[in-house]
């Protein structure tokens, strides 16, 4: 037993190796470099002066502007995650309980939006939501709103745009977990007199919790790092963290400060994801 275990261990390690090397090379190395940059000092003329200082981090966390941008980002990410969860759960349940050919088609339909890039999708929303867009034309034709209603460049437009981007991730993650819940459990609960809502609350939801945790974490991380959607649909006056990081790198060429902002975003995203997970896990195994 031990022998075979050890023998099996070696090929497993070898199988993992390419992925590990790739991640080290493509992800860890640039991040180490970026972290080093974040400790440098910026000069508009020389760009980057070698140093070991925490001043970029300090000025980011004490600047009310960046605190507000972070708050906007967190609020938007939480909101979009909750909407995606609420909208995604019924869809995932339906998909998971489906059989036969329809299931394959519906799965494909769920994945389909991912084949269109974020920018293209945002462009679609722009033609729908613009002051001269389809929706405003319809509102005007209805006679209820003679003047165009401001839909573009609003937090609502951003939330709408982001939710449609992340929804497939939520649905697919949830569906794969719900599929693993034996249908018999629900039938047994119904047989014992539970109402459908009780079955959902006491049987399906607790068993689907790992999917809720994974799906929400995945979607939350995507929302925290949203870039194209907030820029295109939120307009210049709505700022989230990822565009703020980009601005520092590209518009002001302030790489040290941009790097510090990037690491702050990473740390906050990680902390909130872990906190959310812990919260949901506790619900699953109440003390």
């Amino acid at each position, binding site marked *: 037993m031990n022998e075979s275990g050890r023998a099996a261990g070696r090929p497993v390690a070898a199988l993992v190796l390419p992925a590990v090397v790739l991640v080290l090379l493509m992800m860890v190395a640039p991040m180490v470099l970026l972290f080093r940059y974040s400790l440098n000092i*910026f000069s*508009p*003329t*020389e*760009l980057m002066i070698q140093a070991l200082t925490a001043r970029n981090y300090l000025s980011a966390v004490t600047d009310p*502007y960046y605190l507000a941008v972070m708050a906007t980002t967190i609020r938007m990410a939480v909101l979009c995650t909750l909407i995606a969860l609420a909208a995604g759960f019924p869809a995932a349940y339906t998909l998971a309980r489906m059989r036969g050919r329809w299931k394959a088609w519906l799965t494909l339909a769920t994945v389909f939006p991912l084949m269109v890039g974020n920018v293209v999708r945002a462009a679609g929303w722009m033609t729908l939501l*613009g*002051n*001269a867009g389809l929706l405003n034309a319809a509102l005007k034709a209805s006679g209820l709103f003679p003047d*165009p209603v401001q839909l573009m460049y609003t937090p609502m437009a951003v939330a709408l745009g982001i939710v449609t981007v992340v929804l497939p991730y939520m649905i697919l993650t949830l569906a794969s977990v719900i599929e693993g819940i034996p249908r018999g459990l629900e039938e047994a609960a119904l047989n014992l007199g539970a109402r459908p809502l009780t079955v959902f609350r006491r049987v399906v939801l607790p068993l689907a919790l790992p999917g809720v945790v994974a799906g929400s974490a995945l979607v939350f991380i995507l929302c925290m790092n949203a870039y194209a959607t907030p*820029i*295109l649909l939120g*307009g*210049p*006056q709505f*700022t989230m963290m990822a565009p703020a990081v980009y*601005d520092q*790198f*590209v*518009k*002001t*060429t*302030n*790489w040290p400060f941009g790097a510090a902002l990037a690491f702050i975003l990473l740390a906050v995203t990680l902390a909130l994801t872990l906190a959310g997970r812990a919260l949901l896990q506790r619900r699953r195994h109440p003390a």
Partner: protein
Amino acid sequence: MLQDLGSQDARKTKLIAERVSRHGSMDVVHLGDADMYQMAQLGVFEEVDLKAVPNAATIIPKLRKPYSIPHIFSAQIILYNPDKVSGVTGFADLWDPKYKGRVAIPDLNYAVVTFGAALIAGGSMSNWEPAKQKLLDLKKNDPKIYPSHEQLAAALKTGEVWIAPMWLARGYMWQKAGINLAHVVPKEGAIPIVFEAAVPKNAPDKANAWAYLNAMLDAKAQQGFADRMGYVPTVSDATLPAAVGAQIGFSPADQAKFNTPDFAYQAKQLPAILDFWNKEFKA
């Protein structure tokens, strides 16, 4: 030939990222004059090889630089919808309460808009401080800020906004595209912009890069660019048809009043200007 299309800022970032590398990815880099100056200060460009770029002899003397060739130029003017707006004379009209909610500001042009505001508020091309209060005052007029020039053009077309500071060349292109527009060169003098091209020190194929620069200065190419894109030629031997010249050109009097940017000052102040723009003007 492979063209690497992207924003100026992205191109700048690429230049900076590649500057320590012996083999860059670009033979020719296009940038606006202020960005070009900033990059040249970092020492990333070759000096223009005048032997390899014979057309450089025809460059308008005022536009000559050691590290780049001027490709095209234009200037920031006030663009407006003639059905809605009249009697515009300069930058100050953007503050006119008559146009509340109808003023469009291009987000990308934050620097040149800031200097435009500075000029009418007692500042200069070497002092943007007075622009701060002036721009905060402009907020009372509820200006609409657009993330891209194209979105601004769309808003002008639908009549959502009526008046905007913009490059004249863009105004010409949009007029050609059927948008009802007129323009005025501001009485305080327009701020010119020269789009330039240069060859990085680590360009893989310099011979072809110089040939490309030479072709850019060719009179025919310059005339074609003027007609299609509305930018004014930078060489003395490219004459424009009178009709085109009247729409995109600047009279000698206009040119004499050009407020040429102080590039050294601008390079130093740009981060502070953007900070103010993002945190206070757009907030």
